[in-house]
């Protein structure tokens, strides 16, 4: 009897475990059939248009899922507005932690039960592109409404675009700035001016020990900034074939020398002054740091007492550079090519809804401290009220996207930084070794740069 019970329990556990592996419930509960095609609402959008006056899925009830790793509330707000128009549609927003997301999503997309819509990050482009359906929106209309669309065209189709762009700025401590006798007029626009300001912001004790860094770039900064410094001088990150990284060149050596001099000639910081410039700035030990948009959230969440300001990255001269920096896009959702035809149709319609309107672009841009790529939002008061976005606003089309290149480029750049600043390796030797290792690590990468699609590419 006991044996039978144990066997039954084991079998039950096995079935439950298998059942747990199946897709999540896409309940139609609470939905009602929609019979009113004329909603009496206006068409939204300038070029990408959304006409609400129609039936979705012929008015029959339908439920789909939208997966994301963050910003669930922002998505939910859009979903609520869409569901209000179409009572027969339910879009369930499912939040997955970042690490789980990229493990589960490709597996789900392979099968039939994957989410019809999912948040995309371009660094995972090669993992998911084969499961994505092209947008049912004309590229021309997208290009008129959004910047950077041409970089995302694959065989005349668009699978996702950028709703916002993210790049680097200089964050500064306002209190230290004031203590050093600096005002808004001292905001540097060139690297020479920046060095002078950094020197004024540097403090040492009586023994000559550094107690306040004028500029701190310890940690991830070198790998984030080095390509941008190259672009400022018109140096591309990839060679003519579009696949081989071009790291070992005079421009990289010169820019690395400039950074090296900041610590070793001008003494505005030190590689041993904390190993993380973010924490150092947050703890009030460093006056200036170079960071991307995420820094705003980091400061607001973890260092609310720091009074900070932000300004555009300096350039070699006061002339407009080839590009101010490199950017990376925050991507619009993708559509699952393996979802049923009905689910894909709803997903395409919801996508038009969020891309034709402005709320999605505005709210997600503010959420991620990234500048909206929708042209109509460029002068939006809410966007310009944000200090980080305000710094990017005047030159937003002068930032270049090299494409979602393999992480080996950044990983090896970080290693080059350590070889030079901690292991005392000669700059030229370290960069040469970095180039060699990047080429080796990228040998299997399926990547081709889109630098040539940059608006001002011909200026080189």
């Amino acid at each position, binding site marked *: 009897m006991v*044996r039978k019970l*144990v*066997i039954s329990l*084991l079998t039950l556990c096995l079935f439950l475990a298998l059942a747990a592996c199946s897709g999540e419930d896409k309940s139609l509960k609470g939905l009602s059939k929609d019979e009113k095609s004329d909603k009496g609402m206006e068409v939204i959008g300038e070029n990408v248009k959304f006409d609400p006056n129609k039936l979705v899925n012929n008015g029959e009830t339908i439920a789909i899922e939208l997966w994301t790793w963050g910003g669930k509330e922002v998505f939910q707000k859009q979903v609520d507005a869409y569901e209000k128009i179409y009572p027969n549609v339910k879009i369930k927003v499912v939040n997955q932690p970042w690490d789980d997301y990229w493990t589960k999503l490709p597996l789900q997309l392979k099968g039939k039960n994957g989410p019809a819509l999912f948040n995309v990050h371009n660094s995972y482009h*090669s*993992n998911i592109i084969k499961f994505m359906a092209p947008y049912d929106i004309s590229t021309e209309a997208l290009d008129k409404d959004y910047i950077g669309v041409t970089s995302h065209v694959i065989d005349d189709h668009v699978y996702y675009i950028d709703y916002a762009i993210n790049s680097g700025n200089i964050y500064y401590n306002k209190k230290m700035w004031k203590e050093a006798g600096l005002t808004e007029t001292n905001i540097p626009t060139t690297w020479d001016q920046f060095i002078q300001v950094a020197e004024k912001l540097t403090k040492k004790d009586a023994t000559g020990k550094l107690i306040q860094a004028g500029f701190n770039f310890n940690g991830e900064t070198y790998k984030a900034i080095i390509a941008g410094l190259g672009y400022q001088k018109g140096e591309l990150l990839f060679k003519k074939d579009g696949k081989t990284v071009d790291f070992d060149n005079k421009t990289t050596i010169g820019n690395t020398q400039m950074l090296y001099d900041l610590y070793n000639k001008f003494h505005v910081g030190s*590689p*041993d*002054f*904390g*190993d993380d410039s973010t924490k150092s700035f947050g703890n009030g*030990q460093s006056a200036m740091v170079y960071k991307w948009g995420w820094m705003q959230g980091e400061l607001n969440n973890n260092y609310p007492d720091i009074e900070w300001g932000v300004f555009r990255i300096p350039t070699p001269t006061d002339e407009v550079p080839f590009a101010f920096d490199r950017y990376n896009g925050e991507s619009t959702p993708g559509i699952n090519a393996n979802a049923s035809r009905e689910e894909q149709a709803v997903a395409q319609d919801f996508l038009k809804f969020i891309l034709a309107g402005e709320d999605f672009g505005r709210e997600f841009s503010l959420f991620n401290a990234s500048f909206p790529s929708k042209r109509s939002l460029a002068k939006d008061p809410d966007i310009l009220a944000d200090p980080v976005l305000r710094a990017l606003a005047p030159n937003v089309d002068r930032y270049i996207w090299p494409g979602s290149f*393999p*992480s*080996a480029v950044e*990983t090896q750049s970080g*290693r080059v930084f*350590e*070889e030079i600043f*901690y*292991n005392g*390796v000669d700059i030229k030797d370290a960069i040469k070794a970095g180039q060699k*290792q990047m080429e080796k*690590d*990228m*040998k*299997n*990468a*399926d990547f081709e740069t889109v630098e040539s699609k940059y608006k001002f590419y011909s200026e080189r």
Partner: protein
Amino acid sequence: MENVGRRNNSIFTLKNIVVTLLLIYFAVFLIYPIGMALVGSFYNWNPMNGTFDFNGIRNYTEILKDKLFWTSMSNTMIFSIVVIVFRVLIGLLLALALFSKLARFKTTFRTVYYMPTITPLVAVSFVWVWLYNPQFGLINDIFGLDINWLKNKDTALGSVMLMTIWKDFGYATIIYLGGLMSLPDDCFEAADIDGASGWEKFKYITWPLLKPTTMLVAVTSLITYLQSYIQILVMTEGGPGTSTYTISYLIFDEAFQNYNFGTASAMSIVLFFFIGLLTLISFKLTKERN
């Protein structure tokens, strides 16, 4: 009797179900991955873009020519030997101290020494990163030093080794304590009658009788440390530069940063045979000495 016979003939017995589940578990999570790694080591393999092209022994020849592979192997050997020596030494000394009749609060000390062993390695690594911090780390504060422990190529690997020794010596202490408790009393009584000193008793009785225990600690430690990478990942990420790369960290880096699964598989197979060889040698030595 008829019922019993029927029950034994059924394939759905508890024993068969449990064994089948175990077999499925080992086949899916052990045999298949090892087999896949072995096959993949002969391929140019990138699962992210679906590349799986046969390239013979090229992965093996490339890694054997790769300077970073040998740096990582060398770091792994240094790391393993140093940590094992100190683990055995400290573990033995503390076990002897706890075994001594003079020692008090034995249970408390046993617990205190064993606590780091059962604490998750990731958590311990993070705590030590703070201890080593060049600006506000306790180690610099206590000793009045100004060293960037984890960013200096001369101190980084040693710093990770020190943390590992601290975390793991408790295991050796407990194992040695068990070994000491099982030693036969009559040997020591005979030595007392012969007038042997404490050192002589240790040299001629305790140490030789503890050799199987020492081999156990050494071999299990060797297998663990040849695969070390968590503390490297958390504390140095292989840096500064490549100065603290271990072979397991390099495998992780190749597979999950560069997606060169073929190269990473070839490295895993080399490591697999290397560990197997060292373990065989250890067992052979133990057998001969026994």
